[in-house]
């Protein structure tokens, strides 16, 4: 995936969405395969609904934990405007997996700023490939909005330098230890995320052809 043998994945969203947990599970999957890995966040007071960007770098040997602008192999966005905020971190032509859900902050509600009209179009206009789907709606259909995190991980599964099963195992291992009754529904959420990504991929090819 990367010419310097370090894979750079940037996961972004807002505080409370599970961005940091998702990246940690991804890191655990990479470690299970014997990679070196470093994970770092820019999360100033993120527990209070602020911006979160979680950097994961893995490979033979990782030095700096930070991904620089223009270097990410994959951008995973848990929220539409946040995906747009960080899209310049991708390599030219890089792939964006994004939740289309919009979480509007108070500064927009009180009229100080506008929410971007069309984040997907803006990201595409910069030459990035976009797979967009409503992860929150998928999670709600499965009965719990918190499953959105696993849906997003499922969407990543076919874009990693290791088999999807490794990531699924890392997710299920975490739940089997802490919440065994949540294992099956997370397996479903993971597969729903993979399916959503595939559908979005087909859609983006169809659009490109048209």
């Amino acid at each position, binding site marked *: 995936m990367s010419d310097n043998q370090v894979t750079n994945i940037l996961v972004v969203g807002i505080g409370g969405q599970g961005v940091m947990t998702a990246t940690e599970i991804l890191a655990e999957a990479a470690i299970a395969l014997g990679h070196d*890995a470093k994970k*770092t966040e820019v999360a100033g007071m993120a*527990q209070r609904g602020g911006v979160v960007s979680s950097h994961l770098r893995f490979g033979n040997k990782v030095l700096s934990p*930070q991904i620089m602008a223009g270097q990410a192999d994959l951008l995973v966005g848990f929220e539409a405007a946040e995906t747009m905020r960080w899209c310049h971190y991708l390599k030219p032509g890089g792939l964006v997996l994004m939740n289309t859900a919009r979480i509007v902050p108070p500064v927009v509600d009180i009229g100080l700023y506008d929410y971007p009209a069309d984040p997907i179009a803006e990201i595409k206009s910069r030459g990035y490939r976009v797979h967009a789907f409503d992860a929150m709606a998928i999670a709600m259909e499965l009965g719990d909005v918190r499953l959105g995190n696993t849906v997003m991980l499922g969407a990543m599964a076919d874009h990693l330098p290791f088999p999807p099963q490794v990531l699924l195992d890392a997710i299920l291992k975490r739940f089997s230890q802490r919440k065994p009754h949540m294992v099956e529904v997370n397996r479903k959420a993971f597969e729903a995320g993979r399916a959503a990504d595939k559908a979005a991929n087909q859609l983006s090819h169809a659009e490109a052809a048209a």
Partner: protein
Amino acid sequence: MAAVMPQPAASRLLLSGNEAVARAVWESGCRVAAAYPGTPSTEMLEVISTYPDIYAEWSVNEKVSLEVAIGAAFAGSRSFCAMKHVGMNVASDALMTLTLTGVVGGLVIAIADDVGLSSSQNEQDSRYWGRFAHLPMFEPADSQEAYEMTKAAFDLSEGFQCPVILRMTTRINHVKALVTVGERVAHAATGFKKEPARWVMTPAGAGKRIPLMFERDKALRAEAEISPLNIVETGKDRRVGFVSSGPAWMHVRESFPDAPALKLGFSCPVPIEKIRAFAATVDQLVVVEEVEPLVEMELKAAGIACLGKDILPRQGELAPNVLKPAIAKLLGEPEPVGLKPLGRATPVPASVFPRPPTMCVACPHLGVYYTLSQLKNITIAGDIGCYTLGAGHPWNALDTTISMGASMGIAMGLDKGRAEADKDKRILAVIGDSTFLHMGMQGLLDIVYNGGNVTVLLLDNRAVGMTGGQANPGSGKGIHGQETPRVDFAKLVESLGVKKERIHVVDPYQLPVLFKTIREEVKVPEVSVIITNQPCVLIDDYKKQQPYEVIAYKCTGCGNCVDVGCPAIHVTRREKVIKPSGKEVELQFVNIETAACTGCGLCVQPCAPEAIVHADLTKPMRLVRH
């Protein structure tokens, strides 16, 4: 946090720098650990408290935490204390004399600098403390080093009988990386031995210890010169050689893999001769240090030519995106290699609204700030905590923030130093429970003793909210969740001398009561204390209520509920109308994100048309979409 079985030795674990230090503290046989929470240091004590066979406490402030660690070290136990950078400002009174007495049991002090200001009021460089207090300092560059250096710090501390400072930064504390852990080795306490010439620092006694401290300086410098924590990595591109420490070291290796570089792990005292020898092997020497030019100044004073802050910024992190262009410019290379992938220009970020941190849905502080935002002719001295967010939108109801507990003294000064034009201004101070106990009560005592006219709002939410809801003496819980005596704030402030009739305990969700109480107390020309009594929504004490929803046709767009500032309230439509008076107003029609609402009822109270009602829970919860 309850104790759990630690992961077995030789495990390869993904640990943050804080978790790595905690593991090493436990393995080192440390018996006493103390801290006051503060980002990015908090998790060190939080994780230590989960290990068996070690006493851990949340102290009331950093100075007390250091004193607890000092006492334990005097008793011959290995001890540890952790704090954020500004915490050492508070603790330094103890530190500056501790350096004269030294210790018996190993004492390691971890200081977490917030380089890049992710959650702090300043960006001071804690490496100054090593110089100021004549103490050795280690600087890890990732989690594995944080683990190893913590263990080495205990050994050095006992070897030289002085505390050792472990200087970390956010980019170490909060980065997760692989650590191979080891076994715990118990260290029994050797016992306190009376030795007044050493432990009782009178002027005469202290005067005799100062020359010993200078002797120790020399010995420590010799130790640093040969320390295996200071390493040279050779490189074939000798145009620039680097001296670096901490996370900046990783950025240097990432950015210039072919350059020679000297890593300072044992960074104070600076191993001058080792660096002098290294400097002779390269064309130019560049010091890459976060934040201040401390090593650079020492090298220049020692006659070693080097560059540092002449070409690198004195603020923020020295990541590859900063280092590469600076060094390219130094070498006269126009194109910073690696920053322009595939020959394209450095990518420019898209323009997106800012997303500042907000108060939580149903936060008890919302009612306080909504009320304060409705009052006129007031000045509000604020403090450090979640409630600092009251300075932001939509409340704009906080006028100063300096340091822990400062709201009290600053309010007093605003009162006594007021201009003639401000003679009718009401002075308020807003402070949280934990900040009040940390350093605020002395300030209140000063206001009472010296006759200040200040209305104090003591926001008691039973937790250290901003750092994640840790316990404090006002929580009635200890670090393990165990029951402890709970401070009675009303009795406490009464005993400081606040008149009983000027003390009010109010429910911050009862807006009319809160409003009436504040409005009446600011008119009284003496000190009043209004204590709010509802818990932080992030701790177990908080009980969710039935959520609310908006009946769309009843909403008149007045926007009163929006002014509460709850993140669960969203404006769905705006409309400009001309009032009969001819004035143009913007209406804001709203919806409530029922899935997020926990039914505090704050927004219901200012809603005139009664458009906000309990949600019908038989219907599926809706997410608000725009």
